[in-house]
């Protein structure tokens, strides 16, 4: 049978679309293509609302398990910066799926442009750190943090997406109080983050060296990715980020993970110190540098003091003899 180009395209879309027959969902369109499958816009006919449905494209048990793991991981993480999961299961065609809140907004890599100042960029960065730190506190690594996986909502809300490579740290919950850094168990087959084709999952440029090499990873791998995101946010910022911010990026992205910030909170604290004009741990300063920063930070008081001294001097100078 001869198929026209348009029929070919429609059949291609039909073959890709999730089979929602007999379910509470109705297909409205496609939102995008993820690492393991597609994300579709569907209507939940029971609750009469639009949700996003993520489906993977084969009934491979390991991929099904990974999708279910992703759904369970996200379901555990109730945080405004993490998209909530509503439902999970298997479609009539055998493909596993889960539904989640439909997020409207822009990806970070599409949003950042020349009109966004450095202060706004740093505010975004803090909001990105919050859900990641929250996830770490609940024993979850993201492992694929990058601008394309971060959505900025219409009211400036930040959502960290695509937890498809996320990983529960060893033996469940890591302690948020003592700041302990749990690692993936080396014996865990998933510790080597590799596909069936032998390639390492993740995104070059945002992947820590130990992750690239398929070694065990801990939360410092996400610190590395956040350092790359900070670098991305600062790359064309006006005015250009000063040396202290560049030093923070370097420390977060150190090849040796022991040199990196021990936690996302430490990284965010250092950036907050920069914003407040306080010393940052990543950038040892000379006495002159410290003095200059002190002056810059207390500029108003220093100017008032100088004005007082000048006025007093003038009064003394012009005092009637």
């Amino acid at each position, binding site marked *: 049978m*001869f198929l026209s180009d348009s029929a070919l395209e429609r059949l291609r879309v039909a073959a890709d679309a999730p089979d929602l027959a007999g379910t509470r969902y109705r297909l409205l369109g496609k939102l995008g*293509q993820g690492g393991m499958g597609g994300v579709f816009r569907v209507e939940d006919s029971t609750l009469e609302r639009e949700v996003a449905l993520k489906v993977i494209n084969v009934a491979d048990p390991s991929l099904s398990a990974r999708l279910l793991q992703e759904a369970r991981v996200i379901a555990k993480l109730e945080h405004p910066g993490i998209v909530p999961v509503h439902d999970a299961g298997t479609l*009539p065609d*055998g493909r596993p799926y889960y539904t989640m809140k439909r997020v409207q907004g822009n990806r970070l890599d599409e949003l950042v442009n020349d009109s966004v100042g450095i202060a706004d960029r740093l505010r975004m960065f803090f909001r990105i750190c919050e859900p990641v730190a929250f996830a770490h506190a609940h024993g979850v690594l993201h492992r694929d943090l990058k601008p394309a996986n971060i959505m900025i909502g219409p009211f400036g809300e930040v959502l960290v997406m695509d937890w498809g490579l996320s990983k529960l740290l060893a033996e469940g919950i890591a302690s948020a109080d003592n700041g302990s850094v749990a690692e993936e168990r080396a014996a865990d087959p998933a510790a080597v983050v590799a596909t069936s084709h032998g390639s390492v999952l993740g995104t070059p440029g945002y992947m820590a060296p130990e992750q690239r090499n398929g070694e065990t990873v801990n939360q410092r791998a996400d610190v590395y990715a956040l350092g790359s995101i900070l670098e991305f946010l600062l790359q064309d910022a006006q005015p250009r980020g000063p040396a202290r911010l560049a030093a923070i990026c370097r420390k977060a992205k150190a090849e040796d993970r022991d040199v990196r910030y021990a936690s996302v909170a430490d990284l965010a604290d250092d950036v907050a110190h920069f914003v407040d004009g306080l010393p940052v741990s990543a950038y040892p300063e000379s006495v002159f540098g410290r003095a200059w920063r002190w002056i810059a930070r207390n500029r108003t008081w220093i100017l008032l003091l100088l004005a007082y001294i000048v006025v007093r001097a003038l009064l003394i100078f012009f005092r009637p003899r």
Partner: protein
Amino acid sequence: MQALSEDTGIGGARHQFPQTRWSVIEGARSSQPEQRQRALDVLVSAYWKPVYKYIRLHWGKPNEEAKDLTQDFFTRLIEKNLLDRFDPAKARLRTYLRVCVDGLVMNTDKAMQRQKRGGDVAILSLDFVSAEGELLELPIAAPAGPEEFFTKEFARSLFGLAVDRLRNECATKGKSLHFQLLELYDIDEGGKQLTYEEVSMRFGIKPTDVTNYLAYARREFRRIVLEELRAMTGSEDEFQREAQTLLGVRLS
């Protein structure tokens, strides 16, 4: 980690993906003549039109010469055991076949080949008239490159075979209406504008039946395409890459 539970809001049968591991590569290398013949039949059914159109349009060969070259190509494929040299780790079968066609067109001495075959005797029964007619349906604009053209024509051929198979399977199962709905919405021009209510009135069924019948036909179409594709690839890796290229989906 356990697999997704059946006990979900949706549920349904699982493992409906094509699991067959038979492929034309294994068949062509088989010592059993019937396996080799089956491999040739599958290969010819999916590839003869892309090969013919490729020779006609990419190489600019006239109708009669393109027919001879197409016949030559599939004859050589078997006689010279060309599939034995195919390594799925190095290339996709589709690309390998296209490169073989290029080599044939560049090197063939037409008169000698026809003599060897005993003149104009066609070995394979191929409907060149329909293929020639399809050429007229193709866009006038030249394709971006030989690989892209060959890929698209292979997809057209594969999907066409899948549609034919789906029609037959639906007829056998008494589900011809399911196929007609897929034909209306996904193949015929203009069917997409019809609402499910309009279609349900036309066929005398409930609107919910339209949704379910269409979903069935699409699900079966997807299954058949993946089955055919798996048969025409040499490895799991190639199968997944081809599915991504042809269906636009990533399988891993």
